[in-house]
């Protein structure tokens, strides 16, 4: 491998600094002891972290986002598994069209989805309900879930299934004992990515938010439009920290780039 020139490394370092600066600054500001945005020049303080716990708005929104992510990701994966198996195994009429259709939400800007879902949910009376919110998120995360589960299913050793059949296993047993265990790693990765995508989503969620269906990012957005204070910084720092841990786990098991290739179109 050719080595990178010093100029290249300088550029690279600047690039990395650029990428990390906003996140680092949040984490620094979070520890300030003062009541306004400032660096913790007088020592690290946890007052703003404690303040998060006193803020029921954020706590409630956090729980909602976690529950939402959990349910939406699970539903998305549950729908994606049979669909992926169908796409990977059978060459049926309309398969390509189906695939394109299932991936099409990627082409729709979240703002448009927000507008569409708000009208729709109001019309059917699901506005302000958890289930309505769940399904909007399912649509958004399905393409990611589908992509990752499909790649797990495609990479499966089909002959292992034939071997199981020849040894006397019925279709259901083949799925339960051979197919599913073999795709679990890919499915798990898909679940995690779906969860994260749902948890982070703001643009669409802003539209369908009601007092009882305000997710954490939406609550944070609302807070920021009014004021930028160390409280929001400490909350963000906590989220960054949690995300870092998840990221390290994901990278360790799958390689971050492989998972996120599904995130680009």
């Amino acid at each position, binding site marked *: 491998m050719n080595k990178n020139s010093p100029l290249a490394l300088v550029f690279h370092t600047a690039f990395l600094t650029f990428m990390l600066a906003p996140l680092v600054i949040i984490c620094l500001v979070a520890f300030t002891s003062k009541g306004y945005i400032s660096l913790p020049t007088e020592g690290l303080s946890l007052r703003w972290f404690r303040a998060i716990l006193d803020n029921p708005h954020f706590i409630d929104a956090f729980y909602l986002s976690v529950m939402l992510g959990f349910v939406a990701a699970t539903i998305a994966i549950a729908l994606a598994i049979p669909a992926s198996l169908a796409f990977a195994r059978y060459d049926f009429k309309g398969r390509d069209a189906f695939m394109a259709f299932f991936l099409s939400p990627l082409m729709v800007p979240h703002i448009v989805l927000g507008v569409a879902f708000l009208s729709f949910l109001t019309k059917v009376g699901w506005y302000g309900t958890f289930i309505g919110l769940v399904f909007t998120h399912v649509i958004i995360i399905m393409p990611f879930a589908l992509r990752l589960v499909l790649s797990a299913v495609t990479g499966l*050793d089909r*002959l*292992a299934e*034939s*071997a*199981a*059949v*020849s*040894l*006397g*296993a*019925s279709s259901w*047993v083949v799925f339960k*004992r*051979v197919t599913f*265990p*073999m795709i679990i790693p890919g499915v798990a990765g898909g679940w995690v990515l779906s969860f994260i995508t749902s948890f982070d989503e703001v643009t669409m969620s802003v539209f369908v938010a009601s007092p009882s269906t305000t997710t954490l990012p939406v609550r944070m957005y609302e807070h920021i439009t009014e004021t930028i204070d160390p409280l929001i910084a400490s909350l963000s720092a906590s989220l960054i920290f949690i995300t870092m841990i998840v990221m390290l786990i994901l990278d360790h098991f799958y390689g971050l780039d492989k998972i996120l290739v599904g995130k680009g179109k």
Partner: protein
Amino acid sequence: MSYLRLEGLSKRFGDFVAVEDMNLEVEKGEFVSFLGPSGCGKTTTLQMIAGFVNPTEGRIFINDQDITQVKPDKRNLGIVFQSYALFPHMTIADNVAFGLEMRKVEKPERDERVKEMLSLVGLGDFAHRFPRELSGGQQQRVALARALVIRPEVLLLDEPLSALDAKIREDMQIELRAIQRTLGTTTILVTHDQSEAMAMSDRIAVMNKGRLAQVDRPYTAYEYPEDGFVTGFLGKSNMLSGLVKDVSNGVTSVDVNGVNVTTHSERYDIGATVHVSIRPEKIRLVEAESGIVGGTVGARIFLGNQWIFQVDTPLGEFIVTLQNTGHENVDEGHRVGLDWSSQEVRILPQEQS
């Protein structure tokens, strides 16, 4: 009485004929190889026996029972795939035990049989490892153990050794045959490697373009091939073309470009155009003018245990192989005579190969 019987088996994919009217009877405990080039239909035939492909026509019998319509999970066959197809998420022991689990064998008996089979294939200590921890040859044996532990009616091997290194492949051939003999399982092997087929089988079934070209013991097929295709597929040969001049006393004389080649046969009439074939190892090098035909050594290749000579003669280029008996042989450029016994000459119909 035949144990495995194929009756009129055919498979067509649209216009393409993969297998045409195959009839075969295999005895219990017999080891038969389907041998042929890729695309000859051998794998399709195996898939039909296994039940993964439905025949267009014909029937399959095992132990006199018609299993043509029986689903693959109910046929009780043992299959070893080219890529082994082990269950990566299960231990070796669980892999081997899977078929027994499906047959609702109780755990104590299951464990016992798995243990037995694993030591039979030489993997007794590997029971708790996972497939990815094993070498190719070891995975191969696990696949074999898994297929055999269920005491299948027939063992099907789909090019099981082609993914292995040459040296390991040879060892596995011997081992596989030994295991098969110990257990007495009726076995069908699919391969494109003629030496593998001949080394391991009781009989070989040579296939060409969906049809059976010849079914015989390896020695018989090699020494007495029925057509040009089988001749060429089982080994090298020198093919000449000529006109039958005389048939008398069990000897046919063929005129090949002025040279008289005799062979022990009475199948063809005077005036017929035929092929004659002589295998390279059946030819001796003699003094230039003392042989049936004379020529010049064009190239000489040393392979360690044998020599290969390319001799240019008026009848065309001859390939001659000689065992390395210790002394140097005729050099390139020298004139030699080629001699052989008429017993070794085969006469074949004039056709496409």
